[in-house]
């Protein structure tokens, strides 16, 4: 079933706060094959963006396994640091259908506990609808 066109422009509620811990960053760095140190890998904010995406998918009753990640762009206002408490707020930026797939453009604004923007994570999600 195609994704509802009226979603474009909709902002979803912020995700629950997530505090960036030494252990989580070490696990993330290790999973990339890196030796963990105190720096946070630049792709770490995907954890927040993923929280936001999951809430969006659940809200729209879209199965995660039908989603292919088409594109990802991060723009950082400052590096993420251990100890940051962050939330992500997802907006559906665009939506089009190509060959039976929904191409969903999303933008997740990641803010710190002071409300300052830390990073904007823009993702293109390809929803391979399957049998309608």
């Amino acid at each position: 079933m195609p994704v509802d066109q009226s979603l474009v422009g909709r902002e979803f509620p912020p995700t629950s706060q997530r505090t960036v811990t030494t252990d989580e960053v070490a696990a993330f760095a290790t999973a990339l094959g890196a030796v963990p140190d105190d720096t946070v890998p630049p792709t770490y904010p995907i954890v927040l963006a993923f929280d936001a995406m999951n809430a969006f998918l659940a809200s729209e009753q879209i199965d995660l396994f039908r989603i292919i990640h088409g594109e990802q762009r991060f723009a950082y206002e400052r590096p993420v640091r251990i100890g940051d408490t962050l939330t992500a707020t997802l907006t559906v930026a665009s939506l089009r259908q190509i060959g039976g797939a929904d191409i969903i453009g999303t933008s997740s604004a990641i803010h710190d506990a002071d409300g300052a923007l830390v990073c904007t994570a823009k993702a293109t999600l390809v929803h391979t609808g399957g049998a309608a």
Partner: protein
Amino acid sequence: MIAGLVVGAAFEPITYPVTRADLVSYAAAAGDPNPIHQDEDVARSVGLPGVIAHGMLTLGLAGRAVATWTDGAEVVELGCKFTNPVVVPAEGSVEVVVSGSVKKIEDGLATLALEVTCNDVKVLGMPKAVVRA
């Protein structure tokens, strides 16, 4: 100013092996349980050639290469399209190769054009990083 950051400079390519065990670790660390990264049958059911690496794992490797080349310079932008899957075999590993060069330096920011391949096929489209020079 970071050593080696001059327009046109090419960095030494870096090869990263990726195994199914890495996909399990990454899924846990990133909180991404999508079964297309674990289960051959589910992957094939959505038209994939087999279990594929998380695109973000591959972009994460590109981020590692950038950190190595620039001695941990602050990353201001990072992004790509995920154009071809990195198919990870049940046994052994695949190799992801990250290469890159300095495209421009402007206002204290260096733009790095990256190339990320697996079995000589580009897996990321226009991968790019901008770092504070």
